[in-house]
């Protein structure tokens, strides 16, 4: 039915149907965020030999995040007198909207995908860069010194790591010859790109952690030095929007890693293909999420100068070398 709809004349009816479907996805994502936060706290708890949340909602703390969200919803909202009010209000929206928009193009299985754009990867990268603007706007509008420092750091960090992120993906594009995410997954039928492009995977993983502003790269909101970074003046649900954007972005980034390097919905071995693609996708996705949580409890935060120098002096040359290595190897393979 959806197939027919996609081929029909675009109009208000199509808009309505897509809207309802997108709302379903949004609810799934919000459910994911709720339990990703719980999972993060639980896993970190176990890694640090403690329990994690275990009071609200039974032994596993299953309702802990729900309670937290309700608390944030009924919390008084303050906007400082000296803040730039319109910008202050609009910043969380700019932060959140791109995080959700990138989800439109990610193929979860061969059937389950929203917009099958021919430039899917480029779309993802272009839109995800916009989140930075939300953070800088929030930091600037707060009229707070910590917030401004956090916002500026966010901008410097995210633009520095955007370059290696974008360049590491080029190796995959060279091998596939397409920016369409479906075709990228289809090209991994025999070998996943994590095996063909290990260097690209490592660069991509490091840069994506930096883009997500997670430990060890969480300088924009490093709580021991900058209070809460660019979110210092935000409270209640406005603050929750920034946090939500962060976790939605984590969902999107883990999905993208799965699609680009881990073969998306394709099974591990071809004789295992009786297991549906969605299960494979979920498994690989969970592994990536676990890896991100693991990083958080293992690595210490790095210093601002180390962060910038690592991005420009290590990751960028490595990513550039990887592109040309791939191109040359491809050329040599063609000769034989």
């Amino acid at each position: 039915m959806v197939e027919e709809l996609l081929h029909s004349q675009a109009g208000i009816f199509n808009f309505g149907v897509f809207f309802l479907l997108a709302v379903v996805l949004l609810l799934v994502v919000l459910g994911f965020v709720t339990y990703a936060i719980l999972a993060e706290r639980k896993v970190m708890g176990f890694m640090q030999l403690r329990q994690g949340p275990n009071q609200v909602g039974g032994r596993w703390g299953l309702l802990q995040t729900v309670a937290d969200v309700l608390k944030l919803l009924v919390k008084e909202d303050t906007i400082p007198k000296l803040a730039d009010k319109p910008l202050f209000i609009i910043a969380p929206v700019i932060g959140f909207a791109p995080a959700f928009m990138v989800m439109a193009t990610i193929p979860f299985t061969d059937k389950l995908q929203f917009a099958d754009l021919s430039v899917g990867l480029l779309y993802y990268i272009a839109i995800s860069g916009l989140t930075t603007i939300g953070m800088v706007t929030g930091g600037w509008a707060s009229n707070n010194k910590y917030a401004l420092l956090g916002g500026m750091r966010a901008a410097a960090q995210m633009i520095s790591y955007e370059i290696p992120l974008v360049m590491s993906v080029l190796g995959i594009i060279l091998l596939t010859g397409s920016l369409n995410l479906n075709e990228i997954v289809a090209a991994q039928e025999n070998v996943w790109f994590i095996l063909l492009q290990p260097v690209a995977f490592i660069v991509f993983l490091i840069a994506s952690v930096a883009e997500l502003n997670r430990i060890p790269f969480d300088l924009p909101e490093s709580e021991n030095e900058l209070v809460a970074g660019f979110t210092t003046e935000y409270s209640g649900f406005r603050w929750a929007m920034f946090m939500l954007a962060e976790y939605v972005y984590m969902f999107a980034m883990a999905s993208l890693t799965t699609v680009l390097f881990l073969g998306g919905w394709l099974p591990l071995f071809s004789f295992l293909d009786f297991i549906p693609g969605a299960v494979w996708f979920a498994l690989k996705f969970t592994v990536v999420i676990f890896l991100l949580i693991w990083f958080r409890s293992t690595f210490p935060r790095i210093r601002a100068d180390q962060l910038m120098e690592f991005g420009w002096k290590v990751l960028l040359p490595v990513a550039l070398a990887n592109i040309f290595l791939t191109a040359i190897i491809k050329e040599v393979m063609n000769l034989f």
Partner: protein
Amino acid sequence: MELWNLYQNNYLIVFVFLCLGVLLPVVALFIGKLLRPYNPYDAKYTIYESGNEPFHDSRVRFNVRYYIFALMFVIFDVETVFLYPWAVAYEKLGIFALIEMLIFVFMLVIGLVYAWKKKVLKWI
């Protein structure tokens, strides 16, 4: 015609996602407005500065390094704009395009090395 419809529908979906991305914060904040308490007094609306009285404007001049890094970003981002179509069409272009691109990137790498030697990449 068929493909044109498909194309339009795909970008309609993108637009739907944009609408939802803007609507969710707006709706959530509106619901919050109905639920949350409101009892203002002046001290609440001051800027947080670890307990000190906040003094003069916070929008101060910031380190010029941020600006230089922004310039570097623009240069390398434009480079990727050229690299993407090259990578997509590489199958058809072959070895000649590879050499051309190597020359192009080599020139930008000279710029990176120059910046490196000038200690631009050193963050203090």
